[in-house]
């Protein structure tokens, strides 16, 4: 019954499957998957699950939305404490260290896959994507599900109106600065806005310029890592952004992707946002837009390195039966298949997680038909990642991001200078890291 309830969009299909399947097949192993997707993404996810459930009779996945990323992780943790947890849990990338630390609460994906007969080739995954969720010795802990990386969206019409040639998009922040000045001088109300400020302008900025965000290889090597994003490279960027905010060249609209509405409506000219913002922009924008790689500072040596991902991965939780893990393995294997991945990638703007899915999308001519959609992949895979650009593994990172958000807001509204704000964020964040480290003992 619960299956029917969950898949509203597929009720007729599900009823048919139900009626046909029940009398013959022996009870399929049912596993729950808790996720954070609603709306359009939720529908696509439901479709994947329905496809999987129809493709075989042995397993049935029940997908349940548990609110946003934070709420989903909470629901999972709370349910684990009450022993009512699902087999699979979607956890956003900042929750990675929390999940890794909870050794007794998770079952690493490589183990789940090894114990089952499902197909699993660790090498098939894009290293830049899977690396975030892989141990230093190459074991995949969770399966990347939705991954994206920040890019620059440009409203070409707005640029042309201000007399700027939109055919060669800005590559560096210096060039962005010039464009912003021109736009501002022409009376543009919102030259630049951003989504996910900490992720784009600190986490990715650090990786992209090959400077550490935190010590100990951004926390990959040891739990006694300390934040380090108050070094000159980051301070300079935040200072510049702060100045732009004061000059009305950068308009801050919220901690998440609230600014998307303003870009899609044509109000804002430039927009740094997750590559996954593509689908929404494409469906709503009434103007000519293009996608450019995330800008970098031309005076930083070695830049651009590579950007890092954001998004979420799927974790298997501990305490389930072998049959349930087998079902989970089958489902994860299904999600990794190139057909499913290619479709997911093309429909959402999220990165493909396997090389095969990337190749398939290429073969289908997707990137030619949708200019700019390949940029995110190239930007991530163009250079071999360094220890500063593999990703981040920090405890209490959700809270630390909150602190960063708070401090950055202080810079944007002019109440703090960049150095002070970043120093404060580092100090406050380190306190949380120490608390987290202690709780893990």
């Amino acid at each position, binding site marked *: 019954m619960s299956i029917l309830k969950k898949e509203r969009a597929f009720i007729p299909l599900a009823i048919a499957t139900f009626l046909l399947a029940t009398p013959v097949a022996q009870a399929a192993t049912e596993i729950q998957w808790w996720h954070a997707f609603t709306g*359009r993404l939720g529908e696509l996810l439901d479709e994947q699950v329905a496809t999987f459930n129809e493709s075989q009779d042995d397993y049935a996945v029940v997908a349940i939305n548990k609110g946003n990323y934070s709420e989903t992780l909470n629901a999972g943790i709370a349910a684990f404490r009450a022993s009512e947890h699902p087999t699979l849990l979607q956890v956003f990338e900042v929750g990675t260290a929390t999940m890794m630390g909870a050794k007794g609460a998770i079952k690493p994906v490589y183990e789940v896959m090894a114990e089952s007969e499902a197909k699993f080739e660790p090498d098939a995954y894009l290293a830049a994507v899977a690396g975030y969720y892989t141990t230093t010795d190459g074991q995949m802990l969770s399966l990347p599900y939705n991954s994206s990386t920040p890019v620059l969206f440009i409203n070409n019409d707005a640029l042309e109106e201000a007399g700027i040639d939109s055919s060669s998009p800005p590559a560096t922040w210096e060039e962005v600065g010039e464009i912003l000045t021109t736009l501002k001088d022409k009376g543009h109300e919102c030259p630049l806005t951003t989504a996910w400020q900490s992720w784009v302008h600190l986490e990715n900025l650090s990786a992209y310029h090959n400077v550490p965000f935190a010590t100990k290889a951004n926390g990959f090597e040891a739990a006694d890592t300390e934040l380090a994003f108050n070094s000159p490279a980051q301070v300079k960027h935040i200072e510049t952004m702060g100045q732009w905010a004061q000059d009305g060249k950068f308009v801050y609209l919220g901690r998440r992707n609230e600014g998307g509405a303003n870009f899609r409506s044509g109000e804002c000219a430039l927009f740094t946002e997750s590559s996954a913002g593509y689908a929404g922009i494409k469906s709503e924008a009434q103007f000519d837009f293009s996608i450019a790689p995330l800008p970098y500072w031309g005076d930083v040596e070695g830049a651009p390195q590579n950007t890092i991902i954001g998004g979420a991965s799927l974790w298997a939780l501990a305490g389930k039966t072998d049959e349930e893990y087998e079902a989970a393995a089958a489902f994860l294997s299904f999600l990794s298949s190139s057909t499913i991945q290619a479709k997911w990638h093309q429909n959402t703007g999220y990165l493909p997680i396997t090389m095969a899915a990337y190749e398939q999308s290429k073969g289908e001519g997707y990137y030619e038909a949708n200019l700019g959609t390949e940029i995110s992949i190239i930007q991530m895979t163009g250079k071999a990642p360094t220890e500063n650009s593999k990703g981040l593994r920090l405890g209490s990172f959700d809270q630390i991001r909150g602190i960063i958000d708070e401090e950055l807001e202080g810079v944007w509204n002019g109440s703090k200078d960049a150095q002070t704000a970043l120093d404060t964020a580092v100090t406050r964040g380190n306190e949380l890291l120490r608390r987290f480290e202690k709780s893990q003992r």
Partner: protein
Amino acid sequence: MAIVGRHPWRTATVHILLILGIVLLCFPLYLTFVGSTLTRQEVLQVPMSLMPGDQFLENYKRALFRGTNAPVLGMLWNSLVMAMGIAIGKIVISLLSAYAIVYFRFPFRMLCFWTIFMTLMLPVEVRILPTYEIAAKLGLLNSYTGLILPLIASATATFLFRQFFMTVPDELVEAARMDGAGPIRFFKDILLPLSRTNIAALFVILFIYGWNQFLWPLLITTDPSMNTIVMGIKQTVPQADDFADWPLTMATSVMAIIPPVLVVLLMQRLFIKGLVDSEK
């Protein structure tokens, strides 16, 4: 008042000011309604139209039967069950304990009284984490019992009934005794009918209290099919990389507001009595 009546212009000013106040107070709701009748694109159009659009049926149908996570119809039902459960539960257990405290003498009576009083000092917002864990341990997550039971202890309602019982003449007890009626019959045949208005008034207030719960359902229902409408609304606001479906959110808001507002408007007299009584 006669004083004002002497100056027609002053009367007019008073009326105009009152009407202005009402317009201000009602404007947010009106705008919500307008938002619920437009298309997604129309809502995003700046500035949004201040006249209702033609998507009323479309949006409400979509909300009622599909919703974001769960159909609003189901959420409305859950809210109704929860609000009724809380109102009735609170009234029943408060009536009983007030009766015991007023009409009986028994050991530790004062201790009981104090224990009930303590609930005033421990709103759910203050003890959320441990309460949640206990509810989880008892297997109450995602159940009506879990939504209702932890909220029905009530010092306020107990005090209210206690106060009312104190005003009931003692002669009634004596007369009942003479007729050979025991405590249960006295309660059922005499006290309960006398408390009818109080119960009804309290019911109106408690129904609204129950309907408007937010934090507790947010914690205890992790399954969308158990969401109540007031907490479920938060989930219609866009998440992560998704974009906003304001008309759906606004339609859901309107439907969340209507039931308790109707209760207030239709049972105005009882509502006011309940409000005044329960805060004494």
